Protein backbone atom coordinates (compact mmCIF):
# COMPACT_ATOMS: atom_id res chain seq x y z
CA UNK A 1 0.00 0.00 0.00
CA UNK A 2 2.90 2.30 0.81
CA UNK A 3 4.31 1.69 -2.65
CA UNK A 4 1.00 2.63 -4.21
CA UNK A 5 1.04 5.90 -2.31
CA UNK A 6 4.48 6.72 -3.69
CA UNK A 7 3.28 5.96 -7.20
CA UNK A 8 0.12 8.00 -6.71
CA UNK A 9 2.20 10.96 -5.54
CA UNK A 10 4.35 10.71 -8.66
CA UNK A 11 1.26 10.55 -10.88
CA UNK A 12 -0.14 13.68 -9.24
CA UNK A 13 3.24 15.37 -9.43
CA UNK A 14 3.77 14.74 -13.15
CA UNK A 15 1.15 17.08 -14.62
CA UNK A 16 1.40 19.74 -11.92
CA UNK A 17 5.12 20.28 -11.77
CA UNK A 18 6.36 19.66 -15.28
CA UNK A 19 7.80 21.99 -17.85
CA UNK A 20 10.41 24.68 -18.25
CA UNK A 21 9.91 28.23 -17.13
CA UNK A 22 9.76 30.32 -20.25
CA UNK A 23 11.43 33.69 -20.67
CA UNK A 24 11.31 35.57 -23.93
CA UNK A 25 12.94 38.65 -25.37
CA UNK A 26 12.45 40.50 -28.61
CA UNK A 27 15.19 42.46 -30.39
CA UNK A 28 14.39 45.02 -33.04
CA UNK A 29 17.20 44.76 -35.58
CA UNK A 30 15.32 46.39 -38.40
CA UNK A 31 17.31 48.97 -40.34
CA UNK A 32 16.86 52.56 -39.27
CA UNK A 33 16.36 54.61 -42.41
CA UNK A 34 18.55 57.71 -42.65
CA UNK A 35 18.91 60.42 -45.26
CA UNK A 36 22.51 59.33 -45.87
CA UNK A 37 21.31 55.84 -46.64
CA UNK A 38 18.58 57.01 -49.00
CA UNK A 39 20.60 59.62 -50.91
CA UNK A 40 21.33 58.50 -54.46
CA UNK A 41 19.68 56.60 -57.29
CA UNK A 42 17.59 53.49 -56.68
CA UNK A 43 16.49 51.46 -59.70
CA UNK A 44 13.81 48.78 -59.90
CA UNK A 45 13.99 45.79 -62.18
CA UNK A 46 11.77 45.63 -65.23
CA UNK A 47 8.29 44.46 -64.24
CA UNK A 48 6.23 42.90 -66.99
CA UNK A 49 2.47 42.94 -67.33
CA UNK A 50 1.60 39.84 -69.31
CA UNK A 51 -2.07 40.83 -69.49
CA UNK A 52 -1.47 44.22 -71.07
CA UNK A 53 1.72 43.02 -72.81
CA UNK A 54 3.60 46.01 -71.41
CA UNK A 55 6.32 46.52 -68.84
CA UNK A 56 7.41 49.20 -66.39
CA UNK A 57 10.69 50.33 -64.94
CA UNK A 58 10.97 52.89 -62.15
CA UNK A 59 13.92 54.92 -60.95
CA UNK A 60 13.99 56.83 -57.66
CA UNK A 61 16.45 59.63 -57.08
CA UNK A 62 16.85 61.00 -53.57
CA UNK A 63 18.79 64.25 -53.33
CA UNK A 64 22.04 64.41 -51.36
CA UNK A 65 20.19 65.38 -48.23
CA UNK A 66 17.27 63.10 -49.18
CA UNK A 67 14.75 65.90 -48.75
CA UNK A 68 13.82 65.82 -52.45
CA UNK A 69 12.61 62.77 -54.28
CA UNK A 70 12.15 62.26 -57.97
CA UNK A 71 10.35 59.13 -59.17
CA UNK A 72 10.47 58.32 -62.90
CA UNK A 73 8.29 55.45 -64.01
CA UNK A 74 8.65 54.47 -67.67
CA UNK A 75 6.03 52.33 -69.35
CA UNK A 76 7.11 50.15 -72.31
CA UNK A 77 5.06 48.62 -75.13
CA UNK A 78 6.82 45.26 -74.73
CA UNK A 79 7.51 42.85 -71.88
CA UNK A 80 11.25 43.56 -71.67
CA UNK A 81 11.43 47.32 -71.07
CA UNK A 82 12.75 48.13 -74.57
CA UNK A 83 10.31 50.39 -76.44
CA UNK A 84 9.07 53.36 -74.42
CA UNK A 85 5.35 54.19 -74.30
CA UNK A 86 5.11 57.00 -71.78
CA UNK A 87 6.85 58.33 -68.66
CA UNK A 88 5.26 59.45 -65.38
CA UNK A 89 7.47 61.69 -63.25
CA UNK A 90 6.70 62.57 -59.64
CA UNK A 91 8.78 65.16 -57.86
CA UNK A 92 8.49 65.82 -54.16
CA UNK A 93 10.20 68.15 -51.75
CA UNK A 94 10.38 68.69 -47.99
CA UNK A 95 10.73 64.96 -47.53
CA UNK A 96 10.77 64.08 -43.85
CA UNK A 97 11.47 60.66 -42.37
CA UNK A 98 9.15 59.56 -39.58
CA UNK A 99 8.95 56.71 -37.12
CA UNK A 100 8.99 52.99 -37.71
CA UNK A 101 5.63 51.42 -38.32
CA UNK A 102 4.13 48.00 -38.97
CA UNK A 103 1.71 47.07 -41.72
CA UNK A 104 -1.25 44.73 -41.25
CA UNK A 105 1.06 41.98 -42.55
CA UNK A 106 3.54 42.75 -39.73
CA UNK A 107 6.14 44.17 -42.12
CA UNK A 108 8.42 46.74 -40.52
CA UNK A 109 8.31 50.11 -42.31
CA UNK A 110 9.49 53.65 -41.89
CA UNK A 111 6.99 56.40 -42.50
CA UNK A 112 7.84 59.51 -44.47
CA UNK A 113 5.97 62.55 -45.64
CA UNK A 114 6.70 64.93 -48.49
CA UNK A 115 5.05 67.73 -50.42
CA UNK A 116 4.13 67.14 -54.03
CA UNK A 117 6.00 69.48 -56.40
CA UNK A 118 4.58 68.10 -59.56
CA UNK A 119 3.39 64.98 -61.34
CA UNK A 120 3.74 64.84 -65.11
CA UNK A 121 2.99 62.44 -67.92
CA UNK A 122 5.01 62.40 -71.15
CA UNK A 123 3.94 60.26 -74.16
CA UNK A 124 7.06 58.94 -75.88
CA UNK A 125 5.53 58.09 -79.25
CA UNK A 126 2.94 59.71 -81.47
CA UNK A 127 0.88 56.53 -81.31
CA UNK A 128 0.72 56.81 -77.52
CA UNK A 129 -0.21 60.49 -77.73
CA UNK A 130 -2.96 59.70 -80.23
CA UNK A 131 -4.30 56.94 -77.99
CA UNK A 132 -4.34 59.26 -74.95
CA UNK A 133 -6.11 61.97 -76.95
CA UNK A 134 -8.68 59.49 -78.21
CA UNK A 135 -9.42 58.39 -74.62
CA UNK A 136 -9.31 61.99 -73.28
CA UNK A 137 -6.92 60.59 -70.75
CA UNK A 138 -6.90 62.66 -67.55
CA UNK A 139 -9.62 64.76 -69.23
CA UNK A 140 -7.12 66.16 -71.72
CA UNK A 141 -6.92 65.97 -75.50
CA UNK A 142 -3.71 67.95 -75.81
CA UNK A 143 -1.24 65.10 -75.57
CA UNK A 144 1.76 65.17 -77.88
CA UNK A 145 4.87 63.03 -78.09
CA UNK A 146 7.83 64.28 -76.03
CA UNK A 147 5.81 66.92 -74.14
CA UNK A 148 5.42 66.69 -70.38
CA UNK A 149 1.95 67.61 -69.09
CA UNK A 150 1.09 68.00 -65.41
CA UNK A 151 -1.45 65.52 -64.16
CA UNK A 152 -1.25 66.63 -60.49
CA UNK A 153 -4.73 66.71 -58.99
CA UNK A 154 -6.25 64.92 -61.99
CA UNK A 155 -7.98 61.57 -62.24
CA UNK A 156 -6.44 59.40 -64.92
CA UNK A 157 -8.14 56.07 -65.43
CA UNK A 158 -8.70 54.62 -61.97
CA UNK A 159 -6.00 56.72 -60.27
CA UNK A 160 -6.46 60.18 -58.79
CA UNK A 161 -3.09 61.90 -58.44
CA UNK A 162 -2.23 64.23 -55.60
CA UNK A 163 -2.45 67.94 -56.33
CA UNK A 164 0.58 70.20 -56.31
CA UNK A 165 1.64 71.16 -52.76
CA UNK A 166 -0.49 68.37 -51.33
CA UNK A 167 1.04 66.33 -48.54
CA UNK A 168 2.22 62.93 -49.62
CA UNK A 169 2.47 60.10 -47.06
CA UNK A 170 4.30 56.92 -47.86
CA UNK A 171 6.28 54.03 -46.36
CA UNK A 172 9.78 52.72 -47.00
CA UNK A 173 10.85 49.18 -46.28
CA UNK A 174 14.57 48.47 -46.12
CA UNK A 175 15.95 44.95 -46.46
CA UNK A 176 17.84 43.49 -43.53
CA UNK A 177 21.08 43.58 -45.56
CA UNK A 178 20.38 47.16 -46.72
CA UNK A 179 20.51 46.03 -50.33
CA UNK A 180 17.09 47.19 -51.47
CA UNK A 181 14.10 49.32 -50.53
CA UNK A 182 10.41 49.05 -51.25
CA UNK A 183 7.75 51.75 -51.22
CA UNK A 184 4.14 51.69 -50.09
CA UNK A 185 1.24 51.14 -52.44
CA UNK A 186 -0.14 54.68 -52.51
CA UNK A 187 -3.30 53.55 -54.26
CA UNK A 188 -4.33 51.59 -51.14
CA UNK A 189 -4.33 53.99 -48.21
CA UNK A 190 -5.36 53.31 -44.62
CA UNK A 191 -7.32 55.62 -42.35
CA UNK A 192 -4.07 57.29 -41.22
CA UNK A 193 -3.29 58.32 -44.81
CA UNK A 194 -0.38 55.89 -45.17
CA UNK A 195 -0.39 52.91 -47.54
CA UNK A 196 -1.73 49.68 -46.07
CA UNK A 197 0.43 47.44 -48.26
CA UNK A 198 3.68 47.56 -50.21
CA UNK A 199 4.48 47.51 -53.88
CA UNK A 200 6.34 44.34 -54.83
CA UNK A 201 9.16 46.11 -56.67
CA UNK A 202 12.55 46.28 -55.04
CA UNK A 203 14.78 49.26 -55.74
CA UNK A 204 18.51 48.63 -55.77
CA UNK A 205 21.24 51.24 -55.63
Amino acid at each position, binding site marked *: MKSYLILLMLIIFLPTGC*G*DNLSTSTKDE*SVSVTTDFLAGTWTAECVDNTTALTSTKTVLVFSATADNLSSTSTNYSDLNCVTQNFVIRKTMNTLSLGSKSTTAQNQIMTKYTAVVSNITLEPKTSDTATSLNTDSYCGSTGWSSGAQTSIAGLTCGSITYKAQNAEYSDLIQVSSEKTFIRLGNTTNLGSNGYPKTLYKEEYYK
Partner: protein
Amino acid sequence: MFRFRVFLLIILLFSPLSLLAQSESSEAEPEVVKPEESSEMQTDEKDRSGGSEGGLFYSTWGIGVQGSYNFTNEILFGGDVSSQSTSSSGGSSGTTIEVETNIQTVNAYARYYLRDLEFTDGLFGQAGLAFRNWSGTGTITEDKTKAKLASIKMKWSPMVLVTGVGWHKVWSFGMSTAISFNASIGGSRTVEYTENMLRFSDAIKSNFEENTDFPTNLVIYLGYSF
Protein backbone atom coordinates in the same frame (compact mmCIF):
# COMPACT_ATOMS: atom_id res chain seq x y z
CA MET B 1 -0.53 15.89 -22.94
CA PHE B 2 -2.83 13.46 -24.71
CA ARG B 3 -0.34 10.61 -24.29
CA PHE B 4 -0.10 11.42 -20.62
CA ARG B 5 -3.87 11.35 -20.16
CA VAL B 6 -4.07 7.98 -21.89
CA PHE B 7 -1.29 6.63 -19.72
CA LEU B 8 -2.86 7.96 -16.52
CA LEU B 9 -6.18 6.47 -17.54
CA ILE B 10 -4.56 3.08 -18.07
CA ILE B 11 -2.89 3.22 -14.65
CA LEU B 12 -6.04 4.31 -12.87
CA LEU B 13 -8.06 1.60 -14.63
CA PHE B 14 -5.62 -1.20 -14.02
CA SER B 15 -4.74 -0.44 -10.41
CA PRO B 16 -8.17 -1.42 -9.00
CA LEU B 17 -8.35 -4.36 -11.41
CA SER B 18 -5.09 -5.70 -10.09
CA LEU B 19 -6.41 -5.57 -6.53
CA LEU B 20 -9.57 -7.33 -7.65
CA ALA B 21 -7.53 -9.95 -9.47
CA GLN B 22 -5.51 -10.63 -6.34
CA SER B 23 -8.62 -10.83 -4.20
CA GLU B 24 -10.27 -13.38 -6.51
CA SER B 25 -7.19 -15.56 -6.77
CA SER B 26 -6.82 -15.70 -2.99
CA GLU B 27 -10.35 -17.11 -2.61
CA ALA B 28 -10.15 -19.49 -5.56
CA GLU B 29 -8.89 -23.02 -5.43
CA PRO B 30 -5.13 -23.40 -6.00
CA GLU B 31 -4.24 -23.86 -9.65
CA VAL B 32 -2.20 -26.81 -10.79
CA VAL B 33 1.00 -25.45 -12.19
CA LYS B 34 2.84 -27.48 -14.80
CA PRO B 35 6.56 -27.92 -14.17
CA GLU B 36 7.63 -25.90 -17.23
CA GLU B 37 5.28 -22.99 -16.32
CA SER B 38 6.53 -23.05 -12.79
CA SER B 39 10.10 -22.81 -14.00
CA GLU B 40 9.28 -19.80 -16.21
CA MET B 41 7.46 -17.98 -13.43
CA GLN B 42 10.31 -18.51 -11.06
CA THR B 43 12.71 -17.05 -13.60
CA ASP B 44 10.48 -13.99 -14.27
CA GLU B 45 9.86 -13.18 -10.67
CA LYS B 46 13.35 -13.80 -9.34
CA ASP B 47 15.11 -11.39 -7.08
CA ARG B 48 16.98 -9.01 -9.37
CA SER B 49 19.49 -7.67 -6.84
CA GLY B 50 22.91 -7.24 -8.35
CA GLY B 51 21.70 -7.68 -11.92
CA SER B 52 22.42 -5.28 -14.75
CA GLU B 53 20.97 -4.56 -18.12
CA GLY B 54 21.46 -2.38 -21.12
CA GLY B 55 19.51 -1.47 -24.20
CA LEU B 56 18.25 1.07 -26.69
CA PHE B 57 15.29 3.35 -26.46
CA TYR B 58 13.19 5.71 -28.50
CA SER B 59 11.81 8.76 -26.74
CA THR B 60 10.35 12.20 -27.24
CA TRP B 61 13.79 13.58 -26.41
CA GLY B 62 15.58 11.39 -28.91
CA ILE B 63 17.06 7.98 -29.50
CA GLY B 64 19.61 6.67 -27.05
CA VAL B 65 21.25 3.97 -25.00
CA GLN B 66 20.41 3.05 -21.45
CA GLY B 67 22.17 1.06 -18.76
CA SER B 68 21.07 0.14 -15.26
CA TYR B 69 22.03 -1.75 -12.14
CA ASN B 70 19.64 -3.37 -9.67
CA PHE B 71 20.88 -2.23 -6.31
CA THR B 72 18.17 -4.25 -4.59
CA ASN B 73 15.12 -6.07 -5.89
CA GLU B 74 13.15 -2.82 -5.57
CA ILE B 75 15.77 -0.16 -6.24
CA LEU B 76 17.52 0.36 -9.57
CA PHE B 77 20.10 2.93 -10.54
CA GLY B 78 20.28 3.84 -14.19
CA GLY B 79 21.56 6.25 -16.74
CA ASP B 80 20.98 7.02 -20.35
CA VAL B 81 22.26 9.16 -23.17
CA SER B 82 20.00 10.36 -25.97
CA SER B 83 20.29 12.64 -28.93
CA GLN B 84 17.93 14.15 -31.45
CA SER B 85 18.38 16.68 -34.24
CA THR B 86 15.42 17.91 -36.18
CA SER B 87 15.11 20.36 -39.01
CA SER B 88 11.99 21.42 -40.76
CA SER B 89 11.20 23.82 -43.52
CA GLY B 90 7.94 25.36 -44.60
CA GLY B 91 6.47 28.64 -45.58
CA SER B 92 3.72 30.67 -47.11
CA SER B 93 3.12 33.97 -48.87
CA GLY B 94 6.56 34.03 -50.47
CA THR B 95 8.49 33.27 -47.28
CA THR B 96 10.38 30.23 -46.05
CA ILE B 97 10.61 29.25 -42.39
CA GLU B 98 13.44 26.94 -41.37
CA VAL B 99 13.62 25.55 -37.84
CA GLU B 100 16.41 23.41 -36.41
CA THR B 101 16.64 21.87 -32.95
CA ASN B 102 19.48 19.91 -31.38
CA ILE B 103 18.78 17.95 -28.23
CA GLN B 104 21.38 15.94 -26.33
CA THR B 105 20.47 14.59 -22.91
CA VAL B 106 22.36 12.65 -20.26
CA ASN B 107 20.05 11.29 -17.61
CA ALA B 108 20.86 9.71 -14.25
CA TYR B 109 18.05 8.30 -12.16
CA ALA B 110 16.89 5.97 -9.43
CA ARG B 111 13.84 3.74 -9.73
CA TYR B 112 11.65 2.15 -7.14
CA TYR B 113 9.80 -0.99 -8.25
CA LEU B 114 6.51 -2.10 -6.77
CA ARG B 115 7.27 -5.78 -6.18
CA ASP B 116 4.89 -6.42 -3.34
CA LEU B 117 1.81 -7.06 -5.49
CA GLU B 118 1.98 -9.69 -8.23
CA PHE B 119 0.28 -7.76 -10.99
CA THR B 120 2.32 -4.65 -10.41
CA ASP B 121 5.63 -6.45 -10.70
CA GLY B 122 7.59 -4.13 -12.95
CA LEU B 123 5.62 -0.99 -12.22
CA PHE B 124 8.00 1.71 -11.08
CA GLY B 125 8.40 5.33 -10.16
CA GLN B 126 11.63 7.12 -10.92
CA ALA B 127 13.37 10.39 -10.26
CA GLY B 128 16.68 11.77 -11.43
CA LEU B 129 18.66 14.53 -12.99
CA ALA B 130 18.92 15.29 -16.67
CA PHE B 131 21.87 17.20 -18.07
CA ARG B 132 20.76 18.89 -21.26
CA ASN B 133 22.46 20.46 -24.21
CA TRP B 134 19.37 21.71 -25.97
CA SER B 135 19.25 24.53 -28.48
CA GLY B 136 17.22 25.62 -31.43
CA THR B 137 17.23 28.20 -34.19
CA GLY B 138 14.74 29.43 -36.71
CA THR B 139 14.91 31.83 -39.62
CA ILE B 140 12.31 33.37 -41.86
CA THR B 141 13.54 34.46 -45.27
CA GLU B 142 11.89 36.00 -48.27
CA ASP B 143 11.88 33.60 -51.22
CA LYS B 144 12.31 36.22 -53.93
CA THR B 145 15.16 38.26 -52.48
CA LYS B 146 16.56 35.85 -49.84
CA ALA B 147 16.41 38.74 -47.37
CA LYS B 148 16.26 37.71 -43.72
CA LEU B 149 12.91 38.77 -42.31
CA ALA B 150 13.31 37.52 -38.75
CA SER B 151 15.01 34.86 -36.67
CA ILE B 152 14.59 32.94 -33.42
CA LYS B 153 17.07 31.44 -30.97
CA MET B 154 16.15 29.00 -28.21
CA LYS B 155 18.21 27.74 -25.31
CA TRP B 156 17.26 25.45 -22.45
CA SER B 157 18.81 25.33 -18.98
CA PRO B 158 21.52 22.66 -18.69
CA MET B 159 20.10 20.75 -15.75
CA VAL B 160 16.60 19.68 -14.82
CA LEU B 161 14.89 17.29 -12.43
CA VAL B 162 13.05 14.46 -14.15
CA THR B 163 10.42 12.25 -12.53
CA GLY B 164 8.20 9.64 -14.02
CA VAL B 165 6.32 6.39 -13.84
CA GLY B 166 6.64 3.32 -16.00
CA TRP B 167 6.45 -0.40 -16.41
CA HIS B 168 9.39 -2.73 -16.94
CA LYS B 169 9.16 -6.37 -17.97
CA VAL B 170 12.06 -8.82 -18.00
CA TRP B 171 11.47 -12.13 -19.72
CA SER B 172 13.06 -15.42 -18.76
CA PHE B 173 15.30 -15.40 -21.83
CA GLY B 174 16.85 -12.10 -20.82
CA MET B 175 15.04 -9.69 -23.09
CA SER B 176 13.58 -6.73 -21.36
CA THR B 177 11.22 -3.96 -22.36
CA ALA B 178 10.00 -0.87 -20.62
CA ILE B 179 7.76 2.07 -21.19
CA SER B 180 7.86 5.14 -19.05
CA PHE B 181 6.44 8.61 -18.97
CA ASN B 182 8.55 11.35 -17.47
CA ALA B 183 8.23 15.04 -16.83
CA SER B 184 10.90 17.66 -16.31
CA ILE B 185 10.72 20.05 -13.37
CA GLY B 186 12.72 23.11 -12.44
CA GLY B 187 14.19 23.91 -15.84
CA SER B 188 14.05 27.06 -17.84
CA ARG B 189 13.90 28.00 -21.49
CA THR B 190 14.77 31.29 -23.18
CA VAL B 191 13.44 32.29 -26.56
CA GLU B 192 15.01 35.26 -28.30
CA TYR B 193 13.11 36.79 -31.18
CA THR B 194 15.00 39.02 -33.61
CA GLU B 195 12.95 41.16 -35.95
CA ASN B 196 14.65 42.37 -39.13
CA MET B 197 11.88 43.12 -41.59
CA LEU B 198 9.00 41.39 -39.86
CA ARG B 199 7.35 41.75 -36.45
CA PHE B 200 6.36 38.59 -34.61
CA SER B 201 2.73 38.72 -33.64
CA ASP B 202 1.66 37.41 -30.23
CA ALA B 203 -0.20 34.59 -31.96
CA ILE B 204 2.92 33.48 -33.87
CA LYS B 205 5.00 33.64 -30.70
CA SER B 206 2.64 31.57 -28.60
CA ASN B 207 2.20 29.04 -31.38
CA PHE B 208 5.96 28.68 -31.76
CA GLU B 209 6.51 28.40 -28.00
CA GLU B 210 3.88 25.68 -27.70
CA ASN B 211 5.37 23.66 -30.56
CA THR B 212 8.91 23.78 -29.21
CA ASP B 213 8.09 22.91 -25.61
CA PHE B 214 9.10 19.40 -24.54
CA PRO B 215 8.05 19.14 -20.89
CA THR B 216 7.34 15.42 -21.00
CA ASN B 217 9.27 12.45 -22.29
CA LEU B 218 7.72 9.16 -23.34
CA VAL B 219 10.39 6.44 -23.40
CA ILE B 220 10.04 3.05 -25.10
CA TYR B 221 12.92 0.80 -24.21
CA LEU B 222 14.20 -2.58 -25.42
CA GLY B 223 17.16 -4.20 -23.73
CA TYR B 224 18.86 -7.28 -22.40
CA SER B 225 19.21 -8.26 -18.76
CA PHE B 226 22.35 -10.02 -17.56
